[in-house]
């Protein structure tokens, strides 16, 4: 009895950890979508770039390694905006999405070339690996990274909420997210708001890179690709039109996947994706505007 209860608590801990990391990614994707109306499929490759930076700076002091990870990811995020997103502003959603596919493949192929210079595929990012050790809390083994992930997620979300609520740039960002053209007419500077969103989303990608390399220190070109796809699904299921519903969606899909995985019989866990995606379809059919988008009916656009 007690073993079952402890396993369940452990699963719950893992579920919160996974949910927290996915929530951070969801904020990064949701912020950029808010101001640019662009679903950034290449978000995972920002995280991958951060993870490679951590791997290549493994010999450095931990702090220096993490700082360089953030620097690389934010620079890449800004470059992506300047070179790709800006020329695409105002294009159709399909074109923007497919272009970010292309960017994603480009960065993965580039990473492959850089990675293969030493003759082997994959690099080890071990500088923050000690966080993977477990600590015992009331008889339950919880990995340290779970606390760090939940702590970072809560801290980042509270900080972001304060910035969005209390500062001028936050006000401008919220205005741009609700109606970009009107906000511009009222004097909100488009490039500044977009740069703000892009930098914050880059910072979050850097944080996720650190957290994910703790779980999986073996970095390859497709690092974080699968996670990004799952988070994109979660963001739309939650409701991409608002940052908070998007974040909740990201959290929910991470949380639920871990729970469903634990609930399935061992010989049936291979069908986990089918179960999760069937749930996704059901939710989308019942609430196409988003699971958490309360009080907002998806109105037919008028002519």
């Amino acid at each position, binding site marked *: 009895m007690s073993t079952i209860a402890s396993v369940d608590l452990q699963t719950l801990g893992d579920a919160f950890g996974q949910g927290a990391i996915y929530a951070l990614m969801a904020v990064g994707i949701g912020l950029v979508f808010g101001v640019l109306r662009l679903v950034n499929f290449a978000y995972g490759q920002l995280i991958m770039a951060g993870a490679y930076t951590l791997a290549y700076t493994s010999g450095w002091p931990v702090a220096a390694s993490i700082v360089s990870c953030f620097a690389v990811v934010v620079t890449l995020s800004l470059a992506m905006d300047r070179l790709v997103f800006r020329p695409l502003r105002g294009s159709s959603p399909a*074109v923007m999405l497919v272009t970010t596919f292309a960017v994603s493949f480009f960065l993965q*192929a580039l990473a492959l070339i850089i990675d293969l210079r030493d003759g082997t595929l994959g690099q080890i990012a071990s500088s923050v690996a000690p966080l993977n050790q477990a600590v015992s809390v009331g008889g339950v083994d919880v990995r340290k990274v779970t606390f760090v992930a939940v702590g970072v997620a809560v801290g980042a979300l509270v900080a972001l909420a304060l910035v969005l609520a209390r500062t001028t740039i936050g006000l401008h960002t919220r205005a741009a997210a609700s109606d970009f053209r009107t906000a511009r007419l009222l004097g909100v500077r488009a490039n500044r708001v977009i740069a703000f969103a892009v930098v914050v989303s880059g910072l979050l990608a850097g944080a996720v890179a650190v957290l994910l390399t703790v779980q999986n220190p073996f970095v390859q070109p497709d690092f974080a690709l699968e996670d990004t796809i799952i988070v994109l*699904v979660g963001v739309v299921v939650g409701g991409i039109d608002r940052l908070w519903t998007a974040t909740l969606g990201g959290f929910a899909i991470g949380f639920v996947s871990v729970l469903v995985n634990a609930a399935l019989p061992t010989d049936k866990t291979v069908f986990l994706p089918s179960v999760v995606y069937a749930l*996704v379809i059901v939710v989308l059919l019942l609430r196409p505007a988003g699971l958490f988008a309360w009080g907002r009916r998806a109105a037919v656009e008028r002519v």
Partner: protein
Amino acid sequence: MSRRLDTLTELLGPAVIVILVGALATTASASNEVYFLNALVFVAIVVAIYVFVGISGVLSFGQISFVAVGAFAAGVMTVPVDSKKGVLTSVFPLLRDHSVGNVPSLLLAAGLGGVFAFVVGLPLMRLSGLAAGIATFAVLEITHNVLREWTKIGPGATTLALVPETTGALQATLGALVAIVVAFLYQRSRRGRLLRASREDPAVARSVGVNIHLERLLAFTLSGALAGFAGALYVHLLGSITTEQVYLELTFLTLAMLVVGGLTSLWGAVIGALGVSGLDSFLSRAEQSHVHVVLTFTLWQGTRLVFLAAIMALVLILRPSGLTGGRELRLRWSLRRGRG
């Protein structure tokens, strides 16, 4: 008269270029022929996607599910019965003890693709925008997961081999032509025009009595049948296949072909498929050997994808409506500008 000429060009342009590629395939060396055939099968797949995504304007990541179902259905059913007992040991006896010929397998794949698309589309076609994109993506994930793990209907995670390689120059060309003609007839038909109207303005289309759900469902089913058919062509070209070959990468690549060519025209679908696969073949040959462009240089592994992705991104940034601008082929250039 001139309108009739336009209609004719709209069909003949794509058809002639496909026949040309097919003719080139027969003159190419054995090692090069596969690139041409590959391009033709991609035309069939991209045209299948165009029938739904291009005409309805609803983004779908799910059409490769129907390619996958078609490929595995045609593949499993054409492996000779004698070999099946050795390689497909765990499948249902019905599948294990029977095999069909090449043409029936193509029809079977088209039928299965259509039925599957209809069943999936019945609830899903109520959605539009990003919700539709994600829901169809979920269909792709589920299809891939089931094909990969359920060994009673196919080879599971192992390679399905020993499929007769019947897609030569003739079958690839005819297959691509069938897809083009079906797409052309559909887009010129009343139903196709109603769906196109709903893409341009859903509210107005609905107000004049277009049943958008029904029109989308019809196009989705037709697209599923064509995709299943294209999947069968694909498996008969490759001779062996795994579930990973009809999954994410193929989805992104074919969607990219459609968008690069021009999302809203049949001409764009054909040009995109041929252009991107031509570029891809050139780069993969370059990756394997020395290429004389300006200087002789050897490309190292990964370079092909870097170039391919960079060129696709460039095309989309410089020309967001695709190489053809999303228009059908017209012979009289002045008129085109007048209408633009």
